[in-house]
């Protein structure tokens, strides 16, 4: 029996389909045309220039910087944030006094506004007046106290990735906790009877059964970091000396600062392809490790 007929089906679908196509998908898909033009972004018209944008992208040092930073962010965040959050999830999954409160505190930065977070950390890092210089100074670590973390091309991207980890560790932790709750306690009991110790239980039971949660978390944070714009824009705007440029900041600048949106669009096409490739391969690879309970 059909609940909807064609007319009601279209009626229900229309508002979402129209808005989504006009104001989200349409603009992005039209980039497949504009990426091959000298578009100035003043009107919808542009001249076809073939592959010129793409040729220029590949010889553009900023493209290499953006690729490098995307890679740094993705790798650091996956390794550090996920290691810490799995560890915290396992610890805070137990029934302990104050555990609900601890989880809530660790999760809290995830709901804060990026501008607020950017300001807090700009101040934390800021030379002379900031928290870290004064903190290291009070410990007598003058070498660390004199580093301008966000102002040096060799440290800025790492300082920013620390902020991203600070904000989202609690979020990954909660996703891992949801995963832990799906593991039946029978498995742990029978492992105890067989004489397994805590370490064996973690590596032979917990970790393998957490693979679905690891997949979700990895996909979320990799996609999020590949699309990174806000944290960098608020803290460094891509500087110093372009050392923290990522695709998001470059595309924004080509669109609104230097009036080369056609060129920026070519980069956006490459980024979209990269994101899809990476997402599919993460799901493929981690899917192979998945085990059934």
């Amino acid at each position, binding site marked *: 029996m059909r*609940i*909807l007929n*064609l007319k009601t*089906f279209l009626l*229900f*679908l229309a*508002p*979402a*389909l129209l*808005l*989504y196509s*006009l*104001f*989200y*998908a349409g*603009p*992005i*898909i*039209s*980039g497949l045309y504009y990426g091959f033009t000298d578009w100035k*972004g003043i*009107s919808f018209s542009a001249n076809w220039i073939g592959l010129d944008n793409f040729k220029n992208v590949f010889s553009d040092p900023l493209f290499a910087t953006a690729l490098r930073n995307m890679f740094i962010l993705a790798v650091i965040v996956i390794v550090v944030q996920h290691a*810490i959050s799995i*560890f915290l999830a396992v*610890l805070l999954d137990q029934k302990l006094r104050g555990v609900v409160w*601890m989880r*809530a*505190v660790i999760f*809290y*930065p*995830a*709901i*804060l*506004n*990026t*501008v*607020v977070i950017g*300001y*807090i950390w700009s*101040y934390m890092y800021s030379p002379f007046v*900031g*928290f870290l210089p*004064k*903190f290291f100074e*009070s410990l007598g670590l003058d070498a660390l106290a004199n580093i301008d973390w966000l102002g040096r091309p060799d440290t800025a991207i790492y300082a920013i990735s620390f902020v991203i980890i600070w904000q989202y560790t609690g*979020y990954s932790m*909660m996703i891992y906790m*949801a995963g832990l709750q799906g593991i039946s306690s029978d498995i742990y009991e029978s492992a105890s009877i067989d004489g397994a110790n*805590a370490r064996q239980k973690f590596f032979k039971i917990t970790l393998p059964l957490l693979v679905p*949660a690891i997949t*979700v978390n990895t996909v*979320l944070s990799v*996609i999020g970091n590949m*699309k990174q714009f806000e944290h960098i824009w608020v803290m460094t705007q891509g500087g110093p000396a372009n050392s923290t440029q990522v695709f*998001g900041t470059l*595309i*924004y600048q080509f669109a*609104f600062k230097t009036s080369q949106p056609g060129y920026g*669009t070519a980069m956006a096409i490459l980024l*979209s392809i990269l994101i899809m490739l990476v997402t599919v391969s993460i799901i493929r690879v981690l899917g192979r490790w998945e085990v059934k309970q």
Partner: protein
Amino acid sequence: MRAAKISSYGIVAVCLAVILVPLFVLATVSLQNSSGTLNPLALPETYHWSNYPKAIEVGRLVLYFTNSVTVLAVSLSATLVCSILAGYALRHGRAWKADWYFSYFLLGMILPGFAGTIQSFLLLRELSLLNTHLGLSIIQVAGGMALPIFLYFQFFKTVPLEIEEAAMIDGCSPIRIFWQVVVPLTLPVTSTCIIVIAINSWNDFFGPLVYLSSPDSRTLPIGLMFFKTQYSANWPQLFAASALVAMPITLLYMFVQRFIIKGLVGGAVKG
């Protein structure tokens, strides 16, 4: 065993400190004398509460708060309506290639939204919606409906067909079945969607940065960003403004913390 336990709680304590110290610094610096030297390591000697009313006035925070609420209200209600309807259509649309539409909508969770910014910008300009809260809301609805559609679709699959079929045999029209039988069941998914949509809209940075350029139309995050460009050296006042911007969501979090965490995590896990 005991040593292992103590060291693991040591690590938890360090993590808690790393989270809390910057928040403490935010609070304490916001109360310091805005013309004196700053000491982020201790509580101020005298509390300069006057930084707060000054920040509200200088930062025009009341206006920006109202703007943020307006955008949130429009974009939340419109996203809910669009996605619940679309989710239902996709659930019952096998005969008309619903799975194609479904994959098309899912692209919205993967593709970078900034890839189509200039096109959307020109489109809003053509429609005279640039610098309007309606225009920004429309952009948020279009860019944020993928996950809600997915969540509603997944939920509708769990509703037994028999319920709808029984109503149909009793002579209910499709619209009445949807409205009176199905919608009342969606409360749990709807609450997840409300949390996700509301937090994304409230914290949206890129949208208002691009589509709202007139000072009067700014939302809180962008208003706060311009606060810094005007008063860059004044950390206490900037931090008072930041604390105020963080306040509404923080208060909400204190009262319905479980609900918010469940909403955000549920949205991610099912998505």
